[in-house]
């Protein structure tokens, strides 16, 4: 285990976080808010720590998948911790665990909040919350890959650990260039949304926050009623962009390079858009009696886009909608958006391949000797990918069941418990009943909040990198490779 390299990566992440924390500082200066000092302290602390950890470049830069996973998981834990720290010490969020919950929810682009009233928060804190979404959306390590040169094929192991999706592909031969292209597309689309929102008469501060929260498919709003009080134009713009940020970014790469046929030929993207469309139509028909046609369509599209892309904004309290619609929305949470986007959930590609395996199994009952290779995106799917998807489903179910059990000690109804876990593990945000769009997560016990924080990070990192930390073998190896471990083993030999 390459401990030196892991700490180097974590140090680099800290440095970046420190620099990003200067963002809310700037906002605090602009709006003359005292909380800026707290952000500045944490920022400087992060930068100094990061600088110390990256002071010496590791002699051996090679690392493998396990190191990639461990580095990613630890980075995210560190990231969430230091992200929540300024909110806690500035008493913007007085409880420590609440601050951690808010920060984890931000970085994992969940958007579940423990705050009932966000409007009294300092502008700096609001901006920082949105920024966490934006950084967490594409991934801080992907950002790291784009700016620091790591040698060899090792860096693919980080990308694999942080990027969502069953199999991670590259756009161009080098990881570094791939990461750069992804971030350029990301920045470009965020800017585009910002312009559209400004055109709709939204204030600059709110536009910046909303577009960052949409880009990361996060869902922290700057108003208590999320997006309900904005004009229909703004709601439509956000709807369209939420859905767009759920699309696999490879499609945008193809569009930028004018390979339209490739972009629109992507099976995953087509399936994703199809599900979105069908769901909107269904919800629209189901809630038709409640609203006028225009309003109904807008609300249906917004809620479906928001849930499916795992953003979690809302324009109405969908907790009050008909049962069938509520069921649809909960199911959409699980599906999530495309792999290679900023969204959470199980991902359309996994669902599609899962369906194909079921169909194959049925065929196997009909013709026991038949041989059929599953095809996806026009290519045969390797057995390994199918296997890893199956294992992913199983792990997901186990983690889900365990979390629901732990949450249930709060004494709430099953609907609340179930959707609270679903909304966090899929990085959506709001659930139903006591965690619906009109309420928040503040009323849970400390234990429940810890479980939900874990679920959020596990869901964002696609389970395994975080679960790896619980494998005793990892710690044994890390211990053996540490200076103390080497010293002890030497002594043993003597």
């Amino acid at each position, binding site marked *: 285990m390459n401990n030196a390299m892991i700490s180097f990566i974590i140090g680099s992440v800290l440095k970046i976080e420190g620099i990003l924390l200067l963002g809310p500082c700037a906002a605090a200066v602009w709006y003359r808010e005292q909380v800026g000092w707290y952000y500045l302290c944490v920022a400087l602390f992060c930068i100094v720590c990061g600088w110390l950890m990256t002071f010496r470049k590791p002699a051996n830069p090679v690392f493998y998948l396990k190191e990639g996973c461990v580095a990613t998981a630890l980075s995210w834990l560190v990231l969430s911790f230091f992200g929540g720290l300024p909110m806690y010490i500035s008493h913007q969020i007085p409880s420590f665990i609440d601050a951690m919950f808010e920060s984890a929810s931000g970085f994992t682009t969940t958007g579940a909040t423990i705050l009932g009233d966000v409007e009294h928060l300092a502008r700096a804190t609001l901006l920082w919350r949105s920024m966490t979404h934006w950084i967490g959306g594409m991934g801080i390590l992907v950002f790291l890959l784009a700016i620091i040169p790591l040698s*060899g*094929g090792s*860096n*693919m192991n980080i990308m694999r650990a942080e990027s969502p999706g069953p199999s991670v592909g*590259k756009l*161009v*031969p*080098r*990881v*570094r*260039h791939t990461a750069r292209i992804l971030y350029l597309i990301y920045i470009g689309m965020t800017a585009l949304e910002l312009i559209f929102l400004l055109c709709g008469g939204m204030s600059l501060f709110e536009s910046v926050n909303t577009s960052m929260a949409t880009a990361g498919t996060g869902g922290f709003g700057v108003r208590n009623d999320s997006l309900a009080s904005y004009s229909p134009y703004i709601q439509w713009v956000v709807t369209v962009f939420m859905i767009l940020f759920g699309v696999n970014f490879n499609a945008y790469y193809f569009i930028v390079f004018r390979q339209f046929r490739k972009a629109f030929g992507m099976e995953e993207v087509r399936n994703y858009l199809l599900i979105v469309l069908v769901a909107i139509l269904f919800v629209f028909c189901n809630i038709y009696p409640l609203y006028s046609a225009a309003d109904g369509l807008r609300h249906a599209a917004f809620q479906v886009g928001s849930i499916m892309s795992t953003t979690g904004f809302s324009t109405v309290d969908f907790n009050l909608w008909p049962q069938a619609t509520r069921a649809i929305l909960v199911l959409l949470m699980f599906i999530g958006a495309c792999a290679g986007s900023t969204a959470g959930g199980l991902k359309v590609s996994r669902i599609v391949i899962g369906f194909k395996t079921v169909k194959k199994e049925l065929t196997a009952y009909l013709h026991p000797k038949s041989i059929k290779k599953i095809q996806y995106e026009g*290519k045969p799917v*390797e057995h390994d990918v199918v296997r890893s998807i199956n294992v992913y489903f199983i792990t997901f179910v186990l983690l889900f069941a365990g979390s629901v059990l732990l949450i249930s000690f709060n004494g709430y109804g099953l609907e609340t418990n179930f959707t609270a876990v679903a909304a966090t593990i899929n990085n959506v945000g709001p659930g139903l009943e006591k965690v619906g769009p009109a309420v928040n997560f503040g009323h849970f016990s400390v234990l429940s909040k810890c479980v939900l924080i874990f679920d959020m990070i596990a869901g964002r990192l696609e389970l395994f990198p975080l679960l790896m930390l619980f494998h005793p073998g990892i710690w044994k190896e890390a211990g053996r490779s540490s200076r103390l471990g080497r010293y002890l083993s030497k002594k043993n030999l003597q």
Partner: protein
Amino acid sequence: MKIIIVGAGNVGSTLVEQLAHEGHDITIIDIVARKIQAITDNYDVMGIVGNGASYSVLMEAGIEQADLMIAVTEADELNLLCCTVAKRVGRCAAIARVRMPDYSKEVRYLQEQLGLALVINPEMETAKEAARILAMPTALEVMAFAHGQAEMIKLVVPEGNTIVGMTLAEMTKKLSVSALVCAVERKGEVYIPSGSFRLESGDTLTFVASRRNIRTFMDTFGFKTKRVRNTLIVGGSKASYYLAQELLHSGVAVKIIEQNQARCEELSVLLPKAVIINGDGTDEALLKEEGIERAESFVPLTGIDEVNIILTLYAKKISEAKVITKINRMNFKSVVNSLELGSVIYPRYITAEAIIAYVRARSEARNNNIETLYHLFDHRVEAIEFEVNEPSEITGKPLVEMRQSIKKELLIAFINRNGHIIIPSGHDSIEVGDTVMIVTKHTGLQSLTEILN
């Protein structure tokens, strides 16, 4: 440079390793997903599973933007087809590996007609290298520069040799012709020596001289220079055929042991002067019967590295023969080095060196070609021969004027002026039209001007 490599075999993966190390954007194509997976796990390159000769696969690999296409699959025909398709679709240069004797006779024609930048034949190059070593059996390695005008010899300084304890300056005084010691390996460390460097027994040194002067150098310092008179080859592969052809041409008696009856018959038609034995080359009794104890040289060229190693070790034990080991695939270089096999040839590095020389010369905007490139001492030292096509800050000036600005650990080994090899001293200068050979520990030089600080 954007490079597409088709074929993820031995040579393909060596190329990926070395070209990715030099910072190129590489896409590798192979039909076997497992091989692609293994490569993309270890190197920062893009992998595509598919047939490299198909239009759609090449489009996916981005052939339109590619600068170079290298086809190194198993089959010669497929390689040529890949290059042909690539040249039609994209505007890239193409390199193909062609190994079959049928085609390799027509390399010129193929290269011209298909517009290929380079046709490489690792088997032929392996054979040529083996033949050069057999012509100078004291040498561990013999590398040719300046179209064979100059050679670089690597040898071990034996105990009790006259040069033990001498400095390089003293050696030069004793020598009537000009030669230059370029690099010395001592206990795992490599040195680019200066005149005051004192040699010890057990050092591995390389020196460069014109072909005529090499023998004088060897004679002066008491190394044997007699070429071998007969060779025993195990295995009837393509490389064996090429080697036998080279050796027979220069009057060496060749005996080939091959297991396959049909192949033996083929070889006997192709090489009427050679003795072809049909039998198992790993059979101790057969080897003895065919006189391995009295053979002057022994070259196992089977396809299995382990067998080659065992056979050389055996030959070293029971005979005085000069042995050469061919290692195709194995990676455990440190283990191989510790076995003291003597001369070891790595065909995949030979191929990679030729291609890297081409790639480096092309990626540099300025027009100075790299003629030859060799990696020495496990890639720690490079010997590169540059062609000087245009005047620059290093041409037309006596070298002594630039002494301060030339990089440390770098030697100008020779200047080749119209086939005349000059081992340069301070008052010599580099002129347009020369080729210049550089020996250096600064690996990755792309142009001659980079020798300056």
